[in-house]
């Protein structure tokens, strides 16, 4: 196992700036379950951090704490060098932390435009539908969205279309940090590529990005650092060129695991087949 210590990491991969967001000793328990224990995490401007871990590792919980949906049980959050408490989703958005939630959090009875601008409509007393619709199309174009009409309720969209809407919404407020919880889980090939492009674009604009994904290929493609959570604890920080074996070992907590066993078995079968063929 090549777990690096959570706080001492390869200095070569760390951007020179001070972190825009740093978590110290964040813990969260739901009743008897401790979903997160003593999490340490730094996000720098212009950096993509991939958060990986098994199902139930606590990734979404961490994102929800930063989005103001849950309150941490213990620990401190520093944003832009100042200690903050993110008491509500509104507070998180106010700080400049935008989130694409795993469950998307869209209102099915509202149309695409209304969902994109929800809580941040243009001109509160006389909604400016025309400007909102134009802006909506611009955002969706950027993501190569395949959405036939922005005036249909969200309920009529496919899973991937909804995901695109949720991602577009996170860009609306020009945030400083974007958190994407499995943003490409339901997306088609072109849309996934567009989202990865987008992640690189916002990184180049100097935003911090936290991306959660189970897809190691996507992670390797865009991440500057890979942070592994396991059973609610930090379990190592890697560079994206770390070997698959290393990552899987950190995620599952053992060099000998379901993934490696399967790979070994496949390899054995493969060589057996080759032997027969010979």
């Amino acid at each position, binding site marked *: 196992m090549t777990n690096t210590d959570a706080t001492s990491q390869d200095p070569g991969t760390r951007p020179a700036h001070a972190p825009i967001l740093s978590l110290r000793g964040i813990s969260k328990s739901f009743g008897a379950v401790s979903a997160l224990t003593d999490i340490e995490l730094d996000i720098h401007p212009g950096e993509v951090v991939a958060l990986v871990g098994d199902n139930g590792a606590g990734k979404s919980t961490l994102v929800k704490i930063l*989005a103001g*949906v849950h309150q941490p049980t213990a620990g401190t959050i520093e944003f832009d060098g100042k200690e903050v408490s993110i008491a*509500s*989703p*509104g507070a998180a*958005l*106010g700080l400049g932390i935008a*989130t694409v*939630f795993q469950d998307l*959090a*869209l*209102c*099915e*009875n*509202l149309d695409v435009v*209304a969902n994109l601008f*929800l*809580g*941040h*409509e243009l001109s*509160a*007393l*006389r*909604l400016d539908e*025309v*400007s909102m*619709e*134009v802006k909506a*199309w611009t955002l969706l174009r950027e993501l190569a969205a*395949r*959405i*036939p*009409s*922005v*005036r*249909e*309720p*969200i*309920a*009529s*969209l496919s899973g991937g279309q909804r995901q695109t809407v949720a991602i577009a*919404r996170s860009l609306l407020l020009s945030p400083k940090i974007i958190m994407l919880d499995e943003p490409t889980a339901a997306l088609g090939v072109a849309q996934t590529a567009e989202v990865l492009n987008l992640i690189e674009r916002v990184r180049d604009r100097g935003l911090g990005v936290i991306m959660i994904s189970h897809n190691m290929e996507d992670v390797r493609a865009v991440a500057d650092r890979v942070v592994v959570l396991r059973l609610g604890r930090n379990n190592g920080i890697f560079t994206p060129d770390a070997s698959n074996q290393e990552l899987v070992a950190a995620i599952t907590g053992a060099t000998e695991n379901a993934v490696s066993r399967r790979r070994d078995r496949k390899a054995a079968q493969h060589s057996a087949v080759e032997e027969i063929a010979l």
Partner: protein
Amino acid sequence: MIQNSQPALDRSDERVRHDETLSGALKGFLDRIRSGDLGTLPVVVGLIVISAVFTYLNPVFIAPDNIVNMLFDCATVGVISLGIVCVLMLGEIDLSVGSMSGFASAIVGVLWVNHGWPIAAAIAVAICAGAVCGGIYALLFNRLGMPSFIASLSGLLAILGMQLYILGPTGSINLPYTSPFVMFGQILIMPGWCAYILAVLPGAVMVLTGMSTRTRRLAANLSARPLTAVLLRAGLMTIGLVLAVYYLSLGRGVPWMFGMFVGFVVVMNYALTRTKWGRSMTAIGGNREAARRAGINVRLIYTSAFVLCSTLAALGGILSCARLASSSQQAGTGDVNLNAIAAAVIGGTSLFGGRGSAWSALLGIIVIQAISNGLTLLNLPSSLRYMITGGVLAIAVIVDSLARRSRASHGRA
């Protein structure tokens, strides 16, 4: 016509049928109905059927003066129903609106007649009582997580108790017939010219906003509704309204009180559809957690809805004591509560939250009043009236549930 080289922004996906022409607009309308997005259609059809039946049974029903009376009655409960629309939009309920209206009418009677306060002050106190009551429900809901159903059910009893308490042993106060307040509730009618202007105004506003929206949309490279469709809608509406005003003027004319009620409906409709507040209401009714995560102050919106509902209930009570020229222990009891809630649901506001419109209060209360008025004309006993009104409410809820299912399967939430 401006010829754009590139297709309009919202016309670039070739899978969408584009309803550019008048027949296209009609086709879109039929599609919506079929998918369960019924809007006001069932209630309009229902109203026509009800009127036809009652007119057949007793022609007095359709007489202009009977309709004028009906409109006076609509205004009182209709205002209460408008508040119910607000809480239903959030998927909540207020069962104490009847009691609140009775309490408000008692406050006006006691302060104005018994204590000799100026009428305006008495009305202000009654309205404030409504606002405070709504504030208490909001507090119980937001801070203690008490379901509005239970909070308002206990409120129903408590407020009724207060009404009986302040009325004291006499139990009934007569309001002076000659006062402008009671005249407003019983006889004040718009002058003819005023009624006609008000009948033409909505169509004119529709055309003007329709044209300005169209120019703005075309300028922004978006598709726009065909001008003929806008003109047709506005024209049909104006003709309808002018005919209605003409018919009413064959009797006493259009009551000011009803005009005020319609004014409230228009304002509420604007607030629900064209403001950030209304958008937040719809969003919370659809998915409370999503609305919260979008940064909406959910508690504040709940508070506004509960306060608005109780305040409008108080206002409805004030109007009804003007209508009856008395504040009594019976005010606000009986079927007031049910009628106010039923009107909103019959008019098409969903009990499940997230769908509804201010117009449903207007349409629904007209249906309810038509039924109750028609049954009264037939000299049916109140036992039968209750049963029939109950049946109509059941039908309305069934239509709501079925339409909801159909919408779910057509992806319209």
